């Protein structure tokens, strides 16, 4: 009985001695893989937010530019201002709505302005309907990944053609995305 017990105890110890390093190795492996997956997931979400914000800003600008009567672009402190026709102006013409006309009862502006400085942490593009009212950020403050604006430029590259370049960087992944596009503004009178 005594001998048998001793023998069993030795076997359990030997098995334990082999199993423990294996278990530690397995645990370490799984923890590493888990952390890596978590990290990759975080990066993916941050990159998705970055891509979506750049796309959203450009889509808004294109939509607004298409209908603009006047455009004022300032590159120093990036600001882009669109002005639209009023109802009275449309009535004063032949009454027909032109492509991209915006119906407003008074002169209306839409302003895209960079707040916080280019390449600076927390820089955001803000959008306002009237210059006096408080600004609304349309980039940044996303739970899945903060972003900053590293380039926001406007240029006239053709008759009534506004060229826009927007580059943003994710604070989480440090990845950058730069997209350039252009929009033709058929009703634009001054640019």
């Amino acid at each position, binding site marked *: 009985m005594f001998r048998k017990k001793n023998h069993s105890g030795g076997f359990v110890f030997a098995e334990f001695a082999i*199993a423990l390093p294996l278990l530690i190795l397995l645990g370490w492996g799984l923890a590493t*893989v888990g952390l890596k997956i978590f990290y990759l997931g975080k990066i*993916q979400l941050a990159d998705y937010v970055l891509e979506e914000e750049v796309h959203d800003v*450009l889509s808004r600008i294109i939509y607004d530019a298409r209908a603009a009567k006047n455009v004022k672009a300032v590159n120093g402190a990036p600001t882009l201002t669109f002005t639209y026709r009023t109802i009275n102006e449309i009535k004063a013409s032949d009454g027909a709505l032109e492509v991209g006309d915006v119906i407003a009862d008074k002169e209306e502006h839409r302003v895209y302005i960079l707040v916080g400085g280019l390449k600076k942490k927390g820089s955001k593009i803000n959008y306002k309907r009237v210059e006096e009212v408080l600004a609304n950020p349309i980039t940044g403050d996303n739970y899945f990944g903060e972003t900053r604006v590293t380039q926001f430029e406007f240029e006239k590259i053709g008759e009534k*053609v506004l060229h826009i370049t927007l580059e943003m960087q994710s604070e989480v992944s440090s990845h950058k995305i*730069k997209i350039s*596009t*252009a929009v*033709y503004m058929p009703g634009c009178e001054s640019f």
Partner: protein
Amino acid sequence: MNKINNERGFMLLNVVFLTLITSFAAMILLNSDSRIRNPQAAIRLTAIHLANEQLAMMESLAATEKRIDLNYLGKPEDLTTINFSEENPIEFKVTSTDYSEENFHYIAVKVEWTLNERKDSVTIERTIIVVP
């Protein structure tokens, strides 16, 4: 003898489980890794905006000079991107096609690129009216 057999069986089972778990974990990791390294969606978005740039220039030319030019009219630097691929800049090729019916020009702008030896493209269409 029976006892020894049982012990061997148990060890084998251990190895089988260990292999299964590690393979499963490696599979998940490899899958995530390939997804993060594929910037196809960002490149496509860049290409769509490039096609819109070409269309904007064509619209402008049609309005001012009453003609359609199928050559690339945008900024030359916009034909290259490094979005999510800093090590290998991607070159875009822009081709425009005109299907005319009198003053109505159905324009198709195709932007092509190669990423990780895979060719891809996007086509954006618009009707441009040229009033003589």
